[in-house]
């Protein structure tokens, strides 16, 4: 049986070989520990988030962590039981229209998923209409918009306007993230929060999800 504390530590230490060896052992032993192993990886991601906040890790490490996490899901997926247990909630994440950058978005996605969110990733260059439709179809109230280019701010503004026009704004919370975002941009766009730090995005969305659940 795999030691889950050790797995979480290995993940937090970004020790890829140790993480993968442990996960393969889980599968070799029949996969009964798969859900526990996923929880351990998520705990490791939280360690990574903390070390990022302290400055020990930086963006390159988060990118690498995202790859480890994706790899972990890949190894365990056949044995993972879907559903069961209360997650943090559903949310939309995307890079907005006319922007093709996705690295920051993918880092945030890995961290959000590690914190129990079901992330509907709409990809890059996402039109406002797609976001609105998905909000309606999937009953989603938390939206995270990512962008690196300055023109992403225009797309973010259009997206917020589209959400408002669809009558969904009052029941939604919107966070924007990426290089051009700051307090002024947040106000201009009409979002509720902004973040350049992925951990801040996670914390904000967690607070919102808790408020919605209450």
């Amino acid at each position, binding site marked *: 049986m795999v030691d889950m504390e050790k797995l979480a530590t290995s993940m937090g230490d*970004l020790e*890829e070989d140790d993480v993968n060896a442990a996960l393969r052992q889980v599968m070799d032993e029949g996969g009964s520990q798969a859900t526990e192993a996923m929880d351990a990886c998520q705990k490791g991601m939280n360690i990574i988030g903390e070390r990022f906040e302290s*400055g*020990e*890790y*930086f*963006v*390159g*490490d988060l*990118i*690498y962590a995202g*790859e480890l996490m994706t790899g972990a899901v890949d190894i365990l997926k056949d044995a993972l039981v879907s559903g069961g247990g209360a997650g943090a909630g559903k949310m939309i994440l995307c890079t907005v229209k*006319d922007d*093709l950058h996705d*690295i920051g978005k993918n880092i945030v996605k890995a961290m959000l998923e590690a914190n129990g969110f079901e992330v509907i990733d709409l990809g890059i260059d996402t039109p406002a209409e797609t976001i609105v439709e998905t909000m309606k179809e999937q009953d989603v109230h938390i939206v995270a918009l990512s962008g690196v*280019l*300055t*023109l992403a*701010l*225009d797309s973010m503004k259009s997206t917020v306007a589209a959400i408002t026009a669809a009558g969904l704004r009052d029941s939604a919370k919107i966070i924007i993230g990426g*290089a*051009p975002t*700051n307090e*002024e*941009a947040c106000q*201009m766009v009409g979002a509720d929060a902004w973040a350049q730090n992925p951990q801040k995005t996670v914390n904000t969305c967690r607070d919102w999800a808790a408020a919605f659940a209450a």
Partner: protein
Amino acid sequence: MDAKQKLAERTELFNNAYAFKHNKRIPHLSNFFTWQIFDAGYDMNALYDYDIMEKIDDEFNERYQFDCYIDLLTRNPMRATQPLGGTHRISDNGEAIEVMDHVLMEQTEYQAFIDDSDALYWSKVFKRYCKPEATLDDLTESVQEFFEFGEFATKMVSKCMNEYGALNYYSVMTITPFEHLFNYLRGIKGSSSDLRRVDEGLMLEFMDYFNDKYTKPNIKMALDRGTLPGFASTITTGFLGHTVLSTKQFEKFYWPYLKPTIDECAKRGETVSIMCEATMLRFAEFFEDVPKGVMMVLLEQDDPFEFRKRLPNVAIAGGMPAMMLGHSTPEECVNYVKKLADEIGDGFVLSQNKMMSFKNDCTRENLLAVSDFVQEYQC
């Protein structure tokens, strides 16, 4: 004032800024790239027509009278890269240049690069760069266009000095080995994971090899000839890859290849300008001992007031937020420029805090207000 006189005045402004000597007015550096295309009433497709590009540059200079230019629409040689596929393409609405992510060197090829980089560049890197169906005629067209683009760029650099009477911000651009990995060979994701997955000794061997073969000769050439007339600095280096590095990683993989350039510039009385993406104050301790007069940093996300306090030995270019130029009033923009000049003081060149590329990055009204103000305001 004729072009020669303007150039002399502007050269003095920039030399003073580097040296922290007092300037009577604020030097103004253009960090405008493709925004000027929209300002002139065109879209990005103008990048295919050198006559139109020259006309746009002429109008831009006539209208705003910058003292120095980073770009004269010479950054994106679309006609040279397109025959081979290229990594850039103009969006369907003509308003943006989309950059396709390419990994041109695999994680397993570091040793092969060290063994024979010429062979790897041709047989693997360039092959991956090209579209799969690229032919010899495509290559011929690309080479032809590349050299014609070079002629256009040379013409514009000369025009900048001799007709606009303005400086070119950099003459020699050179970047560290990690920047090559980050920007070109491995990409952001690849270079990030390589720091953990590739043997550290091999990474450093690659960097030493790259530095010796490619970076150092360029730097030597620049330093031996010094700052040429019409240029604002001796060497310019791009500072982008640091955005993914922790302090430990920076100290190991980046700084050893940047520090010698700065030290040599200091020793010879030359200058190095750093074009910084995102923030760099995390690494302030590395730059604390750089003597005044050597380095200027074009800031992006760092707060210029904080930067001045933290690194009072480093000249600053930047400060004007794109957010304000695009969305504030002319009066708000001018008041902010005044605040920058008054509080930062000497060792300061006003520029924009982003590569100004898109239509809504700036309004003409705001830029005219700022441009007029810097000409008149007595520091």
